[in-house]
C-alpha cells in the first residue's frame, strides 16, 4: 500500500517548474473576458477604490477619529498601520476587485521601494555615537530578549514545518523556520511609546528604546543570513556562488552604493531636489538588490548605516526627507503587502498560534535569563514591556521580503503567521496594559 502524504503537505513544484519571485514576474496577460469599456471599468474601479482607501487613511489621522480609537483602545493597532494590510487583502479579493492582478502588477515596484525604505530608515538610526552610548546592560539584555525567542520560535516551528513540508532534504523547513524566528525576535517601536503612555520614567523608556533598536539589528542580520545562504535558483540568476560569497556581495554592494549615494547627496543643499535624490537613491538600491535577488531591506539597511556614519554629509536633511516621505511610502507598502497576502491557507493560522505562543514564551524566558545573568535590575514595567512586546513593521517587512525571495507555497504561511500574529499580539499587549492608550500617537511609519 502506497503511503499517502500527510494532509498538511503543500503542493511540491512540478518537475522543471520554478515559481517566479514577486518582483521578477512578467506582466500578467490581460483578462480575456474584458474588452474596451470593461477594461476601462476595471481600471476606474481600481483607481476609485485606491482613492477611497487613501480617503480612509486621511480620516484615520483626523483628531476626532483618533479620539474614538483611543476610547475603543485600538489606537496602537491603527498606529502600526495594520488596517492597511487588511485593506490591501480586502481590495485584492476577487469579489471586490479593486487591486486586481493587473493593477497589482503595476504597483508592485512600490514593494521594492517600501522594503528599501524600511531598511534604510532603520539603518540610518545606527550611528556610531548612538551605539557607543548604549549602556552595556541594554546590550546584554537585548542579546537575551532577541536570542531566546529566536531559538524558541526556530525550534518549535522547525518541528512543525519538517513534518508539514516533507520535501526531500533541502533544508527548506529550516529556512522557513529561520524567517519566522527572525521576525519573532524583534520588538516594535510602539513598545517604548506604550510605556511612555503609561507614565513610565524617562530612563525606562530610553532603556527599552535602546533594546528595541538592538533587536532590529538582530532582525536585519538574520534576514541577511537567510538571503545569503538560501539563494533562489533557476533561470532568473546567472551567478552561482556559495552563501558566504553572497554575504560579502550583499555587504559590498551596500557599502559601494552607499558611498556613491553619499557623494551624490553631498552635492545638493536641500529642499525638493534633496528629497528627489533620497527617493531616487532608495529606489535605485532596492531595485538593484531585487534585480540581483538580494534583500532590498538588508542592502538599503547597509546603505543607511554607511550614510549615517560617514563623516560630514547631509544627515539632517536625510532625516528630514525620511520623515516627510515615510508615511505615504509606508502605507502604500502595507497596502501592497496586504494585497499579496493569501490568508486562505489554514496552515498559516495554525502556525500563527504556535508562533505567537512560542514567541511569548521565549520573550518571558529571555527576560528571566537576562535578569539572572546580567543583574540588569529590570523594573516591573520593563519586564512587562519586554515580555508583552508588539510585533512591528520590520517583522512584516521581513516576511514580505521572504515572500518575494522565495515564492514557495510555505512562505505564504509565514506571512499569515506574522501578520496574524502581529494582530493577535497587539490584542494581548492591550489586554496586559494597565493604563490608557498613547494620547498623541505618532504617525504611521517605521519609527
Amino acid at each position, binding site marked *: 500500500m502506497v503511503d499517502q502524504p500527510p494532509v498538511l503537505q503543500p503542493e511540491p513544484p512540478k518537475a522543471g517548474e520554478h515559481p517566479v519571485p514577486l518582483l*521578477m514576474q512578467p506582466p500578467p496577460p490581460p483578462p480575456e473576458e474584458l474588452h474596451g469599456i470593461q477594461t476601462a471599468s476595471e481600471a476606474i474601479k481600481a*483607481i476609485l477604490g485606491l482613492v477611497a482607501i487613501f480617503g480612509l487613511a486621511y480620516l484615520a489621522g483626523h483628531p476626532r477619529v483618533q479620539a474614538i480609537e483611543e476610547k475603543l483602545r485600538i489606537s496602537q493597532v491603527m498606529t502600526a498601520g495594520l488596517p492597511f494590510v487588511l485593506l490591501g487583502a480586502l481590495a485584492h479579493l476577487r469579489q471586490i476587485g479593486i487591486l486586481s492582478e493587473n493593477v497589482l502588477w503595476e504597483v508592485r515596484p512600490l514593494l*521594492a521601494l517600501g522594503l528599501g525604505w524600511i531598511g534604510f530608515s532603520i539603518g540610518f538610526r545606527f550611528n556610531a555615537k548612538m551605539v557607543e552610548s548604549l549602556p552595556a546592560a541594554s546590550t546584554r539584555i537585548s542579546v537575551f530578549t532577541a536570542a531566546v525567542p529566536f531559538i524558541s520560535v526556530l525550534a518549535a516551528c522547525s518541528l512543525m514545518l519538517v513534518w508539514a513540508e516533507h520535501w526531500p532534504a533541502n533544508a527548506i523547513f529550516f529556512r522557513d523556520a529561520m524567517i519566522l524566528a527572525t521576525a519573532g525576535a524583534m520588538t516594535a517601536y510602539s513598545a517604548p511609546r506604550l510605556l511612555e503612555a503609561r507614565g513610565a520614567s524617562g530612563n525606562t523608556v530610553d532603556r527599552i528604546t535602546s533594546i528595541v533598536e538592538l533587536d532590529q539589528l538582530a532582525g536585519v542580520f538574520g534576514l541577511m543570513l537567510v538571503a545569503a545562504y538560501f539563494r533562489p535558483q533557476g533561470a532568473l540568476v546567472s551567478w552561482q556562488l556559495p552563501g558566504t560569497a553572497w554575504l560579502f556581495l550583499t555587504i559590498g554592494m551596500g557599502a559601494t552604493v552607499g558611498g556613491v549615494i553619499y557623494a551624490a547627496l553631498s552635492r545638493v543643499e536641500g529642499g525638493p531636489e534633496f528629497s528627489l535624490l533620497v527617493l531616487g537613491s532608495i529606489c535605485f538600491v532596492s531595485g538593484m538588490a531585487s534585480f540581483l535577488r538580494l534583500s532590498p531591506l538588508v542592502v538599503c539597511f547597509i546603505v543607511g548605516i554607511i550614510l549615517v556614519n560617514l563623516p560630514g554629509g547631509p544627515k539632517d536633511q536625510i532625516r528630514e526627507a525620511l520623515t516627510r516621505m515615510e508615511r505615504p511610502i509606508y502605507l502604500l507598502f502595507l497596502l501592497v503587502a496586504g494585497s499579496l497576502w493569501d490568508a486562505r491557507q489554514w496552515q498559516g493560522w495554525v502556525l500563527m498560534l504556535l508562533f505567537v505562543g512560542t514567541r511569548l514564551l521565549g520573550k518571558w524566558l529571555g527576560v528571566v535569563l537576562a535578569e539572572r545573568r546580567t543583574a540588569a535590575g529590570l523594573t516591573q514595567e520593563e519586564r512587562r514591556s519586554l515580555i508583552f512586546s508588539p510585533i512591528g513593521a520590520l517583522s512584516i517587512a521581513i516576511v514580505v521580503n521572504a515572500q518575494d525571495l522565495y515564492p514557495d507555497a510555505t512562505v505564504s504561511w509565514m506571512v499569515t503567521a506574522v501578520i496574524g500574529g502581529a494582530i493577535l499580539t497587539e490584542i494581548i499587549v492591550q489586554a496586559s496594559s494597565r493604563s490608557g492608550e498613547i494620547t498623541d500617537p505618532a504617525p504611521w511609519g517605521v519609527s
Partner: protein
Amino acid sequence: MRFLIVLVLAGLMQAAKSFGPAPGVGSSPAGTALACGYLLLSAFFAGSIFKSLGLPRLTGYLFTGIIVGPRVLGLVSDPMVGNLRIFNGIATALIALTAGVELDLQSMKPLLKTIGWLSAVAVLGTIGLLTGAVFLSRDLLPFMTHLTLVQAIAISVVLGVTMVAQSPAVVVALHSEMQSDGPLTRTILGVVVMSDLVVIILFAIVSSVAKSLLGSGTDAFRTAGALAWEVLGSLAIGALVGVILAVYLRYVKGSSALFVTAAAFLIAEIGQRVDLDPLLVALAAGVLIRNATRHGERLQHEIEVSSLPVYVVFFAVTGATVHINELLIVGIPAMALVLTRAAGFYGLGWLATSIAKAPETVRRNAGFGLMPQAGLALALALLFVKTFPHFGAEGSALVLGVVAMNEMVAPVLYRWALVRSGEAGQSKAVTEAVPAH
C-alpha cells in the same frame, strides 16, 4: 564630480543588468524600480551638468533618456521604459495644472490680443507652411507617392497640424527652471495652451476628412460627438476637479503635496480610459482654482514640492522614447521641416506680434517660445498611425524625426530667448524661499 557620479551609476546599472540572463526580466517590477531610481539620479545630475553649461536642465533630462535608453546604450530597456510611462500621465496632468494655475485671466487681459493674433497668424500660418512643405516634398516621401493630388493635400494638412503641435510641458518646465515672468512668459504660456486646444480639434477634423477622402469611411457625427466629449467633457470635468481641489485646499491646512499628486494620477488614469484629455481636465481645474478661488498660490507651491521627481522621470522617459534610428532614416526631410517650422514660428510670430502692437521683447522672442515640442506631437503621431494604418508608420516616422530634433534644440533656443528678453529670474517665486533649481 557630477560626471563621475553619472559614470559610476551607469556602471552599476550595467552590472545589475548583466546579472539576470532571462529575457524580459527588465519588464519585472524590480526592473521598473531599478530603472526609475537610475533615471531619477542620472537625469538629475545630467541636468545639473547641462545647467552649468548654460543649457536647460530639461535638455539634460532628455539627453540622459536618449543616451541610456534602448536605442543607444540600452541601460534602460524598452520594457522598463514602457512600465515607466505611468509618469507621463501624472507629469502631463501636473504640468497642465501648473499652466492653468498660472493663467490669471485678469492679468492676462492686456495680452489677449497678442495671444489671439499669435494663435491665428503664427500657429495657423505655420500649419499652412508645413502643409506646403510636406506637399512639395511628397515625391521624396515614399508613403505619399501613390496618393492622388487631393489625397496628398489632405495628408499634408494632417501632417502639418501634427507637426505644429507645441509643448506646454517644456514651456512650463522652462519657465519654472528660469523662474521667468513677464509679458513674453505669459504670452507664450497662453498661446501654447490655446494652440493645444486648437490642434486637438483641428487634428480630429482634418484626419476625419482625410480618412473619408482615402475611402476609409468615417461617421462624421460620431467623430464630432467624440470630439465634443473630449473637449467639452474634459473642460467640464476639469471644472469639477477644480472645485474638489479647492474644497480640499480650503479645509486641509497641512501639506497637500501628496493629495495633489494623487489627483494628477487620477486625472491621468481615469481621463485616458474614458476618452477625456487629461491635459484639458487639469488645465480647466487649474484655471478655475486660480481665477475663482484664493488657493492659486498654495496649489502652485504644493505642485512645486511634489512635481520634481515626476518631471525628471517624465523627460528622461520622453528622451528614451526618441526614435534616433528613425531620425537617421528621415534626417534630411525632417531637418527641412524643422527649419520650415522654426522659420514659420519666428517670422509669422514677429508679424502677429507687430499687428498686435506687442512689446519689443515679445516681438523678438515669441517665435522661440512656440518651437518646443514633445508629448502632444508624439501622441498625435501615434494617432496618425492608428488612423492611417496603411502608411501611418512611415508618416509618423517623419513626425517623430521632427519632434526628436525639436526636443533637443528648441528648449535651448527658448531658454536663450528668455534670458535675452530679461524675463529670466523675474518670477515672484524668487523672493520666496524656493531652492535653486
